[in-house]
């Protein structure tokens, strides 16, 4: 597995882990607090911050446990990444459109923020999965 492919795995694991943790914290409040009263902002900011730090730490750990032959991306890495990003970009558009609709209907900030956040996470997951499939099946 190349250095770049390992990086995609780390990105995928961290994105799913951080968003899963965020959802668990927020959904834990849904049954006891009205939507407008859910204190989701700290959890959202912490999950974004933790995913950045977590990705760096996990990336270092992965390389310590299994060093790569080379640390430079080559033409195939770039082609695969470009295709994965192109095919996995649409959830960001969907999230932005969803947030636009929600703001037009004057929905709670909770829904607008979460539509955007979900779009980013869904795009990260989709583009990572497509990229990993392209690494395995070929491009």
């Amino acid at each position, binding site marked *: 597995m*190349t250095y770049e492919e390992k990086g995609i795995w780390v990105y995928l694991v961290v994105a799913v882990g951080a968003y899963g943790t965020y959802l668990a914290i927020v959904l834990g409040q849904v049954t006891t607090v009205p939507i407008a009263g859910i204190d989701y902002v700290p959890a959202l900011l912490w999950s974004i911050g933790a995913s950045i730090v977590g990705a760096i730490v996990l990336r270092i750990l992965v390389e310590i446990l299994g060093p790569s032959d080379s640390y430079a991306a080559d033409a195939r890495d770039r082609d695969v990444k470009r295709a994965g990003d192109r095919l996995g970009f649409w959830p960001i558009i969907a999230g932005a459109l969803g947030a636009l609709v929600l703001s037009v209907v004057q929905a709670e900030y909770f829904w607008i923020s979460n539509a955007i956040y979900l779009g980013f996470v869904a795009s990260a997951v989709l583009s990572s999965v497509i990229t990993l499939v*392209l690494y395995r*099946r070929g491009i």
Partner: protein
Amino acid sequence: MVKPTRITNAIRALRFANGEMTQADLAQRIGVTRQTVLAIEQGKYSPSLELAFQIARVFDVPLDEVFQYPEQS
């Protein structure tokens, strides 16, 4: 989703004919990862024209001795 390439290649045979050159050796000489050489050999990645010429130059053979494209039926 992925359209398989019709390009075939003789890289594996050429490596063995050139002192059993390893994939890592070839990769190092053309500036890619070993996994990319493996993907090219297996037909999972079509290299750029420039990379294809670099591979042919390593083996000192014309391009069409490394890569073949079947006639349209």
